[in-house]
C-alpha cells in the first residue's frame, strides 16, 4: 500500500479510528488542535461522535461517562488542559475505566508557551491526580510509530481497565512523515461485561470510585496496586539503538530521542562507542533495558526537553552505580544535535557535564 505524508496529530486521529475508537471529546488547545480538526471530519464518516466540550474538566467526565457505557473513547489536550483533567483521570482510574488520553506537551509551568516540551513527565508518570495510582504512558517518536501505538494504547487500556496516556510533544504533533496505514482491519473490541448500559434484564451495574468504608478502600487500593505491578512486569518497552556495546548510553524519548539518534550516528561514524536507550513506555519505566548495560556502559547521559525529570528514573534504573549526566533544553527550545554531541564529547573526555 502506498505511503502518505501525514502530520503526527492527524496520525493520532487516524490511528484511533483504526483502533475502533468512535468517541472523541475535546477542547481546543495548541499544539494539538490538528487532532480535533481531523476527528471532527473523520468521526462522522465512520459513524462516530466528535463532541467539543465546554472545558477539559467536562471533557474527561464525558470520557468517564462514555467509557462506563462501554465505548472505546479518547480525549486529547496539552499541558494546561491535562492539568485540568487530573481530577477526572483519578476518577477514571478509581472506577477502572479504559480510555486513552493524549498529551501533546508544551512549555510550562502556567500558561508557559505553545512550543514543544517534555516537562509533563512527572505529572504523567507519577499520577498527576490525587490518590494512589499509575497509568501506562506511551511515548512515540515518529509518525509511523504513533499509528502503530494507538492500537496498542486502546488494547492496553482494555487489558488493564485503566487509562493509557500517549505523551508526545508539539514537534511530534506537527511534523509530517510518510506513513504506511495498511489495510483497515476489523477491530475486535473486547466485551465489557461490567459496563453500565441500562440493566436490560441483567444485574445492576455501578460505575464508581467511592468506597466509604476504609477496609473496602484499602482492598480496592491493593487490587489496583496488583494491576500496576502487572503492568510494571509485562509492559516495559524500549528501543535499544546501538546501546549493547556503548561506553556512553544516551537516554531520551520522543523528539529528544530523534535528536540523540543523529548524535549516535555521528559518534559511530567517528568510531565512538555511543548508543541510545529510547523508552517507549515512560511508565512503566523500562528498567529491564538498563540491567545488561550496567556491565558494559561507563556513563549515561539523559537528554530531555525539560530541566530534568526522567533523569531521576534513569538514576533509579542504574541504581546509581554509573554516573548519570543530564542535558536538557526547556521552555519550548529543542536540544540540537551539535550541543548534545558536545556534551557527549565532554563526558568521553572525562570532563564534567552539567
Amino acid at each position, binding site marked *: 500500500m502506498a505511503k502518505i505524508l501525514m502530520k503526527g496529530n492527524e496520525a493520532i486521529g487516524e490511528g484511533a479510528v483504526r483502533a475502533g475508537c468512535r468517541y472523541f471529546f475535546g477542547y481546543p488547545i495548541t499544539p494539538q488542535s490538528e487532532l480535533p480538526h481531523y476527528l471532527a471530519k473523520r468521526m462522522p464518516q465512520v459513524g462516530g461522535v466528535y463532541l467539543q466540550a465546554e472545558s477539559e474538566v467536562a471533557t474527561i467526565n464525558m470520557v468517564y461517562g462514555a467509557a462506563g457505557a462501554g465505548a472505546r473513547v479518547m480525549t486529547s489536550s496539552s499541558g494546561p488542559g491535562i492539568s485540568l483533567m487530573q481530577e477526572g483521570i483519578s476518577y477514571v482510574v478509581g472506577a477502572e475505566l479504559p480510555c486513552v488520553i493524549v498529551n501533546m506537551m508544551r512549555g510550562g509551568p502556567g500558561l508557559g508557551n505553545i512550543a514543544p516540551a517534555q516537562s509533563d513527565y512527572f505529572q504523567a508518570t507519577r499520577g498527576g491526580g490525587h490518590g494512589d495510582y499509575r497509568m501506562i504512558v506511551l511515548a512515540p517518536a515518529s509518525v509511523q510509530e504513533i499509528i502503530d501505538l494507538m492500537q496498542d494504547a486502546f488494547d492496553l487500556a482494555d487489558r488493564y481497565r485503566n487509562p493509557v496516556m500517549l505523551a508526545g510533544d508539539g514537534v511530534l504533533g506537527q511534523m509530517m512523515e*510518510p506513513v504506511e496505514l495498511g489495510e483497515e482491519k476489523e477491530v475486535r473490541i473486547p466485551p465489557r461485561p461490567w459496563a453500565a448500559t441500562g440493566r436490560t434484564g441483567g444485574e445492576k451495574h455501578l460505575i464508581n470510585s467511592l468506597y466509604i468504608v476504609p477496609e473496602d478502600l484499602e482492598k480496592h487500593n491493593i487490587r489496583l496496586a496488583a494491576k500496576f505491578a502487572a503492568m510494571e512486569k509485562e509492559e516495559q518497552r524500549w528501543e535499544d539503538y546501538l546501546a549493547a556495546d556503548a561506553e556512553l548510553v544516551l537516554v531520551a524519548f520522543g523528539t529528544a530521542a530523534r535528536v540523540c539518534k543523529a548524535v549516535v*550516528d555521528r559518534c559511530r561514524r567517528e568510531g565512538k562507542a555511543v548508543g541510545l536507550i529510547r523508552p517507549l513506555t515512560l511508565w512503566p519505566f523500562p528498567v529491564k533495558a538498563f540491567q545488561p548495560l550496567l556491565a558494559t556502559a561507563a556513563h549515561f547521559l539523559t537528554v530531555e526537553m525539560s530541566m530534568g525529570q526522567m533523569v531521576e528514573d534513569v538514576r533509579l534504573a542504574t541504581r546509581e552505580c554509573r554516573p548519570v549526566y543530564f542535558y536538557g533544553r526547556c521552555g519550548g527550545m529543542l536540544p540540537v544535535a551539535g550541543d548534545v554531541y558536545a556534551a557527549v564529547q565532554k563526558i568521553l573526555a572525562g570532563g564534567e557535564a552539567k
Partner: protein
Amino acid sequence: MFQAILIAGFGGQGVLSTGQLLAYAGMLEGRHVAWIPSYGPEMRGGTANCGVTIADRPISSPVVSEPTTLIAMNRPSLEKFEPDVQPGGLILVNSSLIDIKARRTDVRVEYIKANELAEEIGNSKVANNIILGALLEITGVVSIDAVEESLRKVLPAHHHDLIPVNRRALELGRELMREKGTEKR
C-alpha cells in the same frame, strides 16, 4: 544522499506549503522524508519556517538545526539562519525582498529576484517555486516531475489549473541556475 533544507520567511508566504511540496516529492521518489514546522502564535504575518529532510536512509532527527540548504524568503530569516548552514552548503536568497548580502564565504549563495520573476510569468504566488526550481537544479534532491506530481496530489482539484504556471516557475528557476553554467553537486 542527505539533504536538510530550511525554508524561512513570513507567515503567509507559503513557506510551510513549499516545504510540504518538497517532502511529498521526496516521498514519491522513494526517499525517507520529514517535514517539521516552526512558527509564532500569529496566524498571518509572523515568522514561519520549516525544515525538510530528504535522505536515502532512515532519518534520525527531523529537527533541522544545521541545514545543508537555507532558503531565505525575507531578511530576518537570512540574518537568523545564515550562521547555521553547514560549511559547503547552499543559501538561496529571495533578493526581491532581501536587500543585504550573505556574509558566509564557505557556502554557495545564489540571489534570485523571485517576486519580480513570478510577476513576469503572470502569477506573483509562484515565487517560492522559482527558488525551489533553483534548488532542484543545484542539488538534484528531487525531480521537477516529482514536484509536479506532488502538486497534483496536494492541490485540491479546482486548483489544478494552477499546475502549469507552477511548473513554469520550477523550470524558470532551473534555467536561471543552468544559465550560470553551474554543475550539479
